[in-house]
């Protein structure tokens, strides 16, 4: 019974990080409607920002984290303003935006590699520094628990904001139909800018969490993003709670798969799940 508990805990931990990724992704995708490859890189950049402040400059932990989240948000905001907005104004197709975002991903990865080298780095300060909790025979560390709680808090906050605030309603309106939203008087340009800031900031949290949990390298942004995509589709694109549900489901399936089959098929399993959902339930488990 021990193993099953541990597998379940493993899934919780992985799911928490995927949740953060998908929360940001869903937000960005529902308003801008294109597949933004740069998002993955911005998330990792957030993690590296914390590396810079916390480890290289020696600032205090929580200040570094807040700075890191903020920087990820600003980075996303600027990129949206400088690159994606002009393209959308010119009615560029989503394929073009995709390629532009590929350019963004490539540039950010290269910059991170130049500034921080390609070597693998963790944000934590050595092994065994974190307290471990024993739960029914399985183990989870303090850091992992914090990540889990953070993911749930962000999900709740975002859900509430989107449902009950004016801002949230405006975002939903834009997600439904941008043109109509602007006719009704919503300044969609400004809104999208803010959305990109928030979405990228959440992505930054995912990057920071990854930095603490499994470590950072400049090139891991793309696979992080792809996991977020799967979670979004499985759970329901555009639905905040759906995304998180999808994230945990994905984590459970991956870990179950690793347990029952061979570890090496982990990627294939995740993407088979994606294809299955696309075929049979493309709107996801919790539709908008």
């Amino acid at each position: 019974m021990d193993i099953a508990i541990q597998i379940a805990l493993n899934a919780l931990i992985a799911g928490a990080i995927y949740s953060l990724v998908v929360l940001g992704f869903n937000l960005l995708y529902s308003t801008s409607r294109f597949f933004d490859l740069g998002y993955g890189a911005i998330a990792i950049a957030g993690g590296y920002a914390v590396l810079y402040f916390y480890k290289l400059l020696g600032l205090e932990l929580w200040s570094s984290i807040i700075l890191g989240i903020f920087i990820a948000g600003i980075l996303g905001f600027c990129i949206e303003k400088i690159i994606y907005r002009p393209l959308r104004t010119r009615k560029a197709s989503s394929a073009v935006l995709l390629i532009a975002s590929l350019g963004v991903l490539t540039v950010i990865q290269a910059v991170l590699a130049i500034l921080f080298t390609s070597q693998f780095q963790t944000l934590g300060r050595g092994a065994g520094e974190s307290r471990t909790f024993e739960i029914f025979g399985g183990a989870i560390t303090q850091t992992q628990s914090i990540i889990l709680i953070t993911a749930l808090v962000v999900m709740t906050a975002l859900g509430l904001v989107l449902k009950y605030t004016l801002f949230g309603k405006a975002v939903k309106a834009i997600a439904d139909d941008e043109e109509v939203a602007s006719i009704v008087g919503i300044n969609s340009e400004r809104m999208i800018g803010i959305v990109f800031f928030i979405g990228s900031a959440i992505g930054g949290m995912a990057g920071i969490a990854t930095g603490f949990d499994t470590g950072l390298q400049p090139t891991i942004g793309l696979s992080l993003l792809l996991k977020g995509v799967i979670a979004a589709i499985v759970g329901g694109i555009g639905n905040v709670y759906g995304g998180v549900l999808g994230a945990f489901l994905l984590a459970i399936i991956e870990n179950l798969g690793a347990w029952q089959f061979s570890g090496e098929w982990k990627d294939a399993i995740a993407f088979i799940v994606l294809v299955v959902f696309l075929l049979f339930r493309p709107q996801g488990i919790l539709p908008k």
Partner: protein
Amino acid sequence: MERVNRGSALMWVIVALVVVVGGFSILGGKGGAPSTETGPIKIGVIGPLTGDAAIYGEPFRNTVQLAIDEINATGGIGGRQVEAIYEDGQCNGKEGANAAQKLVNVDKVQAIIGGVCSGETLTVVPIAEKGRVVVVSPSASSPALTGISPYFFRPYPSDASQGNVLANIAYTDKGWKKVAVIQEQVDYAVGLYKVFNQVFSGLGGKTVKEEFSSNVTDFRSVLTKLKAEKPDALFVLTQTAASTQRILKQMEELNWKPQIILDEASAGDKETLTTYKSQLEGALTSEFIPDLSNAKLQKLMSDYKAKYGTELPYLGYMAPAYDIVYILKDGIASVGYNGEKLATWSRTIKDWQGASGSVTISSDGDRVGGYSSEVVHDGKTEPYKK
């Protein structure tokens, strides 16, 4: 359907092409002329300078440059300064081929140091051979490279002997009957596992293997599964110390502290050994750097730290890289800077003393002999004694 203005589009294309091709030949002209008898000696270097494998490519580049700077400071080779031309192979066959094409046909080098990965190297060798350029790799370990060409040699042994040594000790000396293996899906690890498994099973042992692809960072469920098998030891077979560190950390979180067998990629990384000291206590490993008291190696490590500010990682690959530069120096001093002559000369290398120990190259280009077994004790490797 809208039609783009064909005239302006065409102009645009032509301008772009001219700029790129023009820049290409103007700037490329710098390296275009073959080395004259008095000009600098230009050696090509191919490695994964970007991408996931850049974790090797960067220290590799640094180590080669360190050696070259040292040589130049003492007058170069025969009075000529040495210059390296670095190209990115991205650990990928196609990019390796592009890099080789440029170095062989545009820069007209006579020797190429690299690739770091077997994937890059396997496409570089045919191109170099056509151009009669000698290729030396510090770390490509694929068995497919043994005897592939008279223009290729490597002061790096094939995986066969490492697997053999480890399997024998594990079964015979340690009495381990069941070994779990967590193995990265790269040619180095796959090859090493095959040999280990063959020998270990032949002796009567049993292995349980889980593989993972290189982009995986979450090993928890795989480790949980292996833990449940209750093996006598766990063989951590990765390409990078990064994956090993993640595995060790996650093992600790899962409260699993088995006996460990390490491959040399991790055993050569001091940071891994010190950070995970308690888990690695008593771990069995095998490197072909016989001992860290090799004077040349020690000097290399301290010089590297002084110049670049970090510890030299992956000693198993970097020590040979450093040696290669000096081997080429001796070769060039002996037969001149000529690919064909260097290739023939390479087969005469015997008992050449370097930071990686004593180097002898056999007729198929592989390094002879090699692995000695070691044990990790108190965060450091020491020779294994029965």
